C-alpha cells in the first residue's frame, strides 16, 4: 500500500530581481580600503623620494594604484583583468580632465572672496588706483558696462536667432541645410576676428570706440548660440500641434506666431540666456571695440566704456598684489554671473519638458 504524502504546498515565491552587477557593501568597502592603503603608501613614497607637491603625489598614487590593481587581479581571467586596468585608466583620465576646472572654481571663490566687499559692487575706479587697498574702489562701472553691452547684444541677436529657428523648423526652405551649416561654422569664428570685423566697419565708420561697437561684436559671437538653441527647442514641438492648427484652418504665419512660438516661450528664454552666458566673459573683441574706462558711462555711443573682462584684463597686466587680488574678485563676479545665468537657463529649460 502506498501512501500519498501530500507535501505542504510551498508558497510560490516571486523571484526578486537581483542586480549582481551592482557593487555590494563588501566590494565597496574593499575598494575604499584599497584607495586608502594606496594613498598612504604613495604618501610614504612621496616623503621618502622627495617628489614634490600635489602633482607628484597624484602621479605616485596612480602608479601604485595601477600596481595594486595588477596584483589584485593576477589570478583572474585576463578579460576581467584588462577590464579592471582600463577602468583605472579611465577614472584617472577623468580625474585629470576634471581637475583643472574644479581647481578654477575653488581658487576663484577662495581668492576672489577676499576682495568681495560692498564697495566692490557700488564704487568705481575713478579716484582709486589698482594698487590701493581692497576696501577702496570697485567695479560697479565695469559691471554696469558689461550688463549694458550684453543687453544690447541680446536685443539685436534674439529676434534674428528666433527667425532663423523658425526658418529651420517651420519654413524649411531650400536653404535649410546651408543656414544650419553656416550657423554651425559661425560658432567657431574666433572672438578676436569678430572684434576686428566691427573695428574695421563700425568703429572706423563712427570714428570712435564705443559700447555700441562692443555690443555689435558680442552680437556676432552670440548669434550662432542663440540660433542653434532656438532651433533645438523648436524641434521639440510635437508635429500634432502644427497639424491641429492647420486642421483648424490657420495659415502658416498664424500657426508659427500664435501656436509654435508661445509653446516654446521658455525655451527661447533659455536660448537668450545661454547666448548671454557665452559672451559675457569675452575679452578679446572688447579690447578692439569698447576699450575700457574707469568711471561710469551710460551712453552706448559715448566713447570707451568699462566692462568686467577688460577690467580684469587690465588689472592682470599691472600685476601688483592688490591689482591681482582685484582681478580675482572681478573673475568671481564674472563667474557668479555666468553661473546664475546658467541655472536660470536650466530652470526655464526644464519648464517646457513638464
Amino acid at each position, binding site marked *: 500500500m502506498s501512501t500519498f504524502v501530500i507535501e505542504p504546498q510551498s508558497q510560490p515565491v516571486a523571484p526578486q530581481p537581483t542586480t549582481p552587477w551592482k557593487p555590494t557593501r563588501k566590494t565597496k568597502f574593499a575598494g575604499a580600503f584599497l584607495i586608502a592603503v594606496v594613498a598612504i603608501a604613495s604618501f610614504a613614497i612621496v616623503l621618502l623620494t622627495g617628489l614634490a607637491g600635489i602633482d607628484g603625489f597624484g602621479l605616485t598614487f596612480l602608479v601604485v594604484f595601477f600596481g595594486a590593481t595588477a596584483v589584485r587581479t593576477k589570478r583572474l581571467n585576463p578579460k576581467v583583468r*584588462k577590464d579592471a586596468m582600463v577602468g583605472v585608466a579611465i577614472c584617472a583620465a*577623468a580625474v585629470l580632465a576634471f581637475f583643472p576646472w574644479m581647481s578654477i572654481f575653488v581658487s576663484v571663490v577662495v581668492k576672489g572672496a577676499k576682495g568681495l566687499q560692498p564697495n566692490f559692487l557700488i564704487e568705481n575706479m575713478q579716484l582709486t588706483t589698482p594698487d590701493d587697498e581692497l576696501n577702496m574702489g570697485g567695479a560697479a562701472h565695469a559691471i554696469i558696462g558689461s550688463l549694458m553691452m550684453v543687453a544690447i547684444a541680446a536685443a539685436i541677436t534674439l529676434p534674428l536667432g528666433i527667425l532663423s529657428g523658425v526658418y529651420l523648423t517651420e519654413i524649411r526652405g531650400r536653404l535649410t541645410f546651408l543656414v*544650419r551649416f553656416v550657423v554651425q561654422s559661425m560658432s567657431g569664428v574666433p572672438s578676436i576676428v*569678430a572684434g*576686428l570685423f566691427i573695428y574695421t566697419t563700425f568703429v572706423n565708420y563712427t570714428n570712435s570706440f564705443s559700447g555700441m561697437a562692443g555690443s555689435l561684436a558680442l552680437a556676432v559671437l552670440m548669434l550662432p548660440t542663440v540660433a542653434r538653441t532656438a532651433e533645438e527647442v523648436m524641434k521639440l514641438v510635437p508635429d500634432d500641434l502644427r497639424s491641429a492648427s492647420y486642421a483648424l484652418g490657420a495659415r502658416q504665419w498664424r500657426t508659427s506666431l500664435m501656436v509654435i512660438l508661445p509653446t516654446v516661450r521658455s525655451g527661447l528664454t533659455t536660448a537668450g540666456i545661454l547666448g548671454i552666458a557665452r559672451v559675457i566673459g569675452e575679452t*578679446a573683441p572688447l579690447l578692439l571695440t569698447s576699450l575700457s574706462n574707469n568711471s561710469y558711462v551710460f551712453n552706448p555711443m559715448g566713447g570707451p566704456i568699462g566692462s568686467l573682462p577688460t577690467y580684469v584684463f587690465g588689472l592682470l597686466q599691472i600685476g601688483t598684489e592688490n591689482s591681482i587680488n582685484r582681478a580675482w574678485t572681478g573673475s568671481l563676479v564674472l*563667474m557668479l554671473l555666468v553661473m546664475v545665468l546658467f541655472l536660470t537657463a536650466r530652470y526655464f529649460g526644464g519648464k517646457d519638458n513638464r
Partner: protein
Amino acid sequence: MEALIASEIAPEPRQLSVVYNRADRIFRRIVTSGALTSLVLLGLIGVFLFVKSAQIFNDRGLSFITGSNWTAGSGDGVILDDFSIGPMLTGTILVSVIALIIAMPLAIGGALYIEFYAASRLRKLLSTLLDLAAAIPSLIFGLWGVVLFTSFGERWSILLNSRLGWVPFIKVQAEVFGRSPFVAGCVLASLITPIITSVSREVFSRTPRDLIDTCYALGSSRWGAIRTVVLPFGRSGVIGGAMLGLGRALGETVAVYLLLNIVFRYNFRILESEGGNIASLIALKFGEATEYELKALVAAGFVLFLLTLVVNMFAATIVEKSTRRK
C-alpha cells in the same frame, strides 16, 4: 494572364498642393531674410577683412605668410615697414596641437567615465558642472594659468627637459621654462577639455542601449562593450568634437596672450620660453599700431579667420552627420 489583386496595388499618394496666401508669403519672406542674416554676416566678415587688408597681400604677397619679421617702419624711410606672420602662424598651430594632444585622452576618458562609470547621481552633477565649465570665460583660465598653473608647468618642463632632452623638440637652449608653448598648451588643453568632453559624452549617450546590453549578454566586460560598440559608434562625433576644440584653441586670444612670450622667430622647441599666436599678436600690437600696421593686423586676422573657418566647417560637417537624429 496575371491577375491583379487589389490589395497589392498601393494607392497613389495624393498630390498635395500648398497654396500660400499673401500674408503667408510675406511671413515666409521676413523669416527667410532673418535666417539669412547669419549667412550674410559670415560673408561680410570675410569680405571686409579681405578688402581692408588687400593692400598688404598686394604689397607683400606670399612673404606675408612665410616671413618672420614684424617691424614697424620709422616713417622717414630709414627703417622700412616689414610685416609678416610666419612664426605666429606656426606658433598658433603648435600650441593648438599640443593642447589637442593633451586634451583628447582626458576628454574621452572623462566622457566615458561620466557615461559608463559614474553612479547616476554623480553623473547628473558632473554633466551640469561640465556644461558650466565649458562656459567659464577663457580670461579666467588665463588668470588661473598665470597665477596657479605656471609653477607646475615649469616643474614639469624642467623634468621633461632633463629626462627627455634627447627628443628633438624638447631640448631647450636657454634654461628658462615659463611662458613656453608647452605651458600655454597645457592651459589651452584644460580650456578645450570641457568642450570636447561634453560633445563626446553627448555622442556616447546616443549609443543604442540594446547593443551595449547585447554585449553584456554575450559575456563581454564593460571595457569590451566600450571598445566594440561605444567607441566605433561615437568615433566621428568625437573627431568632430576634437575639431571644435581645435578651432577654439586656434582662435584663443587672452589665455595665450597672458601665458606665452611672443617672439618673432620660428620656434618648434616646445619648452623654450618663446612662441606666437595670431590672435594674441593682434591683441598685443593693436594699441600702438600705425595705420599700415593696422592693415597688417587685419590681414593676420583674415588668415586666422580662414584657418578656423576651414577647421570649423569640417567639424560642422562631421558633428552634423554623427548627431543627426533618426
